[in-house]
């Protein structure tokens, strides 16, 4: 009995270890190649760590490539999208959580539908709509598109956070002399701060990763976001792997930071989004 339990425990830990290795190995390889000097890259192919590590790829990428621009563009796009979405979703989520009104059913239905149809359908029409407005090849255009795509899911997420705050609190505030909007701003929003942070994190990550619409809407280097920049870099000079992986590691940093921020809320976010990745 005792040995069986021990064997079970060991097997359990080994299985977890195996999964962690599987989950981290690709990222580790990214890191490994990014610090491998070019002259060792081919001679030491499958070694787990190069005999000599270097940061030259990072310094090159930061000092001599367009990646800082891509990085900045992505930060602007993902940051503005996250802030705008969170504001809009807070308002709409509050309405869904606290009011009973006739169109509520239809609003929920509309938002659910937007989560179900393939967004790739919209690539062509959105391009056609934005180009006469001068919003193609512009960060503003991307922010508008990403904001719309993320608002429905963020609204459901914010709604779930508002649902967790007792209605009594606003009612107490309204009796104390507040209007509903003041109660929302002074009582409810401060209590929803963790939810707001989680929503910011989810939307930032989604906007930071978006690829297809960025590819379609952006053509020049000036307005390219990180995914576009990295992908065009790949197809143009598919030689300098070290530099590309250094850039990839850099792209990973903000995503990982936000992952830490939202870790506690993953479940809530995934169930709210349900169909979002």
């Amino acid at each position: 009995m005792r040995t069986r339990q021990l064997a079970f425990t060991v097997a359990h830990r080994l299985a977890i270890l195996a999964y962690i290795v599987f989950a981290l190995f690709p990222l580790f390889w990214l890191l490994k190649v990014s610090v491998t000097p070019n002259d060792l890259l081919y001679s030491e192919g499958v070694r787990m760590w190069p005999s000599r590590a270097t940061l030259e790829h990072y310094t090159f990428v930061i000092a001599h490539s367009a990646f800082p621009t891509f990085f900045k563009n992505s930060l602007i796009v993902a940051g503005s999208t996250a802030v705008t979405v969170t504001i809009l979703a807070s308002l709409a989520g509050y309405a869904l959580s606290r009011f009973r009104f006739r169109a509520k059913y239809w609003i929920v239905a509309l938002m659910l539908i937007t989560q179900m149809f393939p967004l790739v359908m919209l690539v062509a029409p959105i391009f056609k709509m934005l180009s006469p407005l001068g919003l193609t090849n512009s960060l503003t255009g991307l922010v508008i598109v990403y904001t719309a795509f993320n608002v429905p899911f963020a609204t459901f997420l914010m709604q779930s956070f508002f649902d967790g705050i007792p209605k009594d609190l606003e009612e107490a505030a309204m009796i104390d002399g507040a209007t509903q909007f003041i109660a929302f701003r002074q009582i409810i929003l401060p209590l929803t701060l963790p939810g707001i942070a989680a929503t910011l994190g989810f939307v930032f990550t989604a906007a930071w990763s978006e690829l297809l619409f960025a590819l379609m809407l952006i053509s020049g280097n000036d307005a390219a976001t990180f995914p576009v920049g990295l992908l065009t870099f790949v197809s143009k000079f598919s030689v300098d792997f070290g530099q590309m992986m250094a850039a990839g590691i850099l792209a990973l940093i903000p995503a990982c930071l936000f992952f830490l921020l939202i870790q506690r809320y993953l479940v809530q976010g995934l169930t709210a989004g349900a169909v979002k990745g």
Partner: protein
Amino acid sequence: MTHAAHHPATKPFRKRFADAAEPYLYSAPALILIVAVMLVPLVLGISYAFRDIQLLNPFSGRFIGLDHFRALGQDQAFFRALRNTLWWTGASVFLQFVFGLILALLLDKPFAGRGLAQALCFLPWAVPSFLAGLNWAWLFNPVIGPLPHWMYAFGILDAPNNILSDPQLAMWGPIIANVWWGIPFFAITLLAALQAIPRDLYEAASIDGAGPVQRFISITLPFLAPTIAITILLRTVWISNFADLIVVMTNGGPADRTQIVASYIFTQAFKRLDFGYASAIALVLLVLLLVYSLLIVLLRQTLLNKD
């Protein structure tokens, strides 16, 4: 006194209007944006399916009826993409689910360092999809990646070649990347459902003499079933539309062997700039997804009626 009891209380019009308008004011900005950037393009896209719209051809734009759909009926690439979509979706969802469930069960047991293990296991989910695609494409690349060499050493491959350029094997590349990237989604959802099962049920079952396997079959599975069903259904739709990894890793190649419908639409719009044809394919995809959802709803109904 009685007259007040039988007439509805009347409110001044302005107050009534302000009260009724309040929820709409809160939701209006989000709604306007959704309608303008999602619903209008959706309708527009459906209309493109019946028009000749090519971005580089200024003379295009006229109404051509069902011509795109006739062309689609002859398009071998499209039918191949349909088959590939089934294969891509089925394999990805199945593997993600199986490994996700195992991971969730592993993480459900308390042990020292569980928080850290959980964070590390879920980390792939935070990796941007384009980066996940590139990362795996590099791993499969014999020049800098170890995988071809290892697979050759184990006798899985005849030579350390890139499987992404082998028409027979190419689809496995994006599928493996997708599984790596998507396991956390299933694991997180299933773990939440697992932890919502009341612990005293297990204790009661143990006292009643149920072994671990019996407990899993009689408690865990029935409790997880609704979550499993809904997650798989939604994930199936989502993955069948998920073109990022394919666009990044193979761009549909070699010889369209990894082209799925979603990436085919993107290629038509992005590479050939043929918005009309792309929209026609998109419309077909939309109809197929609707049929799928409808079938699911019907299946649910019949299953419910049987109980």
